């Protein structure tokens, strides 16, 4: 009985990044629930998301043809699943776009089927 209980439980130490306090949170994760010790309500919400579905805004650059600069910076339109970031980077490294590109324009849609788009963050003019 005891052994089984130990198996289904997981202990984690996380640093909260909701505010500048940077509290240390101890988290107990069992099959059906997550318990958080330390920190505040907002921190608890952060931890639950961080454990069940961690996401990050991804920023990188793409190759751009005939631009005044060789790279165009981009970001995801919303946070992207953290565990799929390596796969996303692999996909993005295969892309090449054509100048000009304007800030705010969507350059690729529904990345890896996750419902997140790719947005240009710097206007790159065409080389004359």
């Amino acid at each position, binding site marked *: 009985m005891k052994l089984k209980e130990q198996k289904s439980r997981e202990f984690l130490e996380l640093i909260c*990044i909701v505010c500048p306090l940077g509290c240390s949170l101890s988290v107990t994760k069992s099959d059906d629930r997550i318990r958080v010790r330390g920190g505040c309500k907002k921190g608890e919400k952060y931890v639950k998301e961080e454990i069940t579905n961690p996401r990050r805004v991804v920023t990188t650059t793409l190759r751009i043809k005939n631009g005044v600069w060789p790279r165009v910076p981009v970001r995801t339109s919303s946070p992207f699943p953290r565990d799929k*970031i390596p796969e996303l980077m692999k996909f993005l490294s295969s892309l090449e776009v054509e100048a000009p590109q304007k800030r705010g324009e969507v350059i690729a849609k529904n990345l890896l089927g996750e419902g997140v788009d790719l947005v240009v963050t710097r206007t790159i003019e065409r080389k004359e």
Partner: protein
Amino acid sequence: MPRSIRGDVVVIGGGPAGMAAALSSWEAGAKSVFLLERNEYLGGILPQCIHPGFGLQIWGEELTGPEYAEIFIENLNRTGVEAMTDTAALELTPERIVKAVNPQGAWEIKANSIILSMGCRERTRGMLQIPGYRPAGIFTAGLAQYLVNIAGYLPGKDIVILGSGDIGLIMARRLTLEGARVKMVVEIKNSLSGLVRNYVQCIQDFNIPLLFSHTVTEVRGKERVEAVVISEVDEEGNPLSGGEREVECDTLLLSVGLIPENELSRQAKIPLSPQTGGPWVDEDFSTDLEGFFACGNVASVFDLVDYVTLVAERAGRAAVLARPPQEKHILRAGEGVHTVIPQRIREGKDGFLFIRPQKSMKGVTVSFWEREKIFYQKKISICRPSEMIKLDLAQIPWPQEKGEIKVEIKGTEIQGIS
């Protein structure tokens, strides 16, 4: 013969500080504003800071660096501000004459007010005096950032980063995403230099080891970096013998601090603070020399571009008003305080005070002393050297009589991350 022109306001440096200052000078009624930038584009370091996190304080929205810069560039394009890129200011006189060159030739600009916004430079290997040969493969973190994000080059494949400042942490993630192996981040102090959030999202996310109380004591390799030697250090940062080990790598990145770029300020004989490395300024970012203003990282290294924008807007307005000098309070950094900016208080009615603590502490009290008496105290739960404490000047009951005021921070020291 240089072409001579006159301007109400000349702003030197077109980064975030210079752009905001030029814009606010124009909006405050200046008839002619020149914004000089030696680079071929405006924005300073922002276009290469492709990560998010900018603008949260002033716009409540998280932007990337290029987006933040482009909003200012667009706003400037709607004004009569004359932005001169590819233009290097070479000389500055106390009489407010700027000598500059650009592809069109030499210029001599006489201004009613001059705003210094030259920003800062990264500390280099030479300043750290790390022994060894001088092989290729040693970069400051910001240069590596330019190479990766703008020029499109990967500076190396196996990387060691010295210093846990924000640019170093950001580059650890950036290089990892681009396929390089970041072997470790080494920090000479016993606590993080950058933001906790950057530690979590740039270091923890990628399982990059971060070693506190360690530094690089030797660079190995003649043509190209082949390895670095890292050593444990004592509390003063002196390497302990016996604690060395070799780490193979082809690249060493340095994220070991920034130095305000004040060659021109020195030429114009503007008094500089030994603590910040920049001019002494008041809450309007007016220097001790009439008609000269200094804002952004040239005055003191700020940790948020939002703060730079806020102070630059004040400088821009003040440069148009050009009020005559008057007696001011003089702020001194006391115990626990690394720097205070501004260090002069003209009136203390509006504006901000930024205090950088020396150490990470909990249960913090900030005290303001006039002679032997505390006249104001503020309690905050936590402070870190990576995050300036920002106070509203109007909160503080400044003494009637102008004199010296000491700012002090006390609390319980914390080590490591949190």
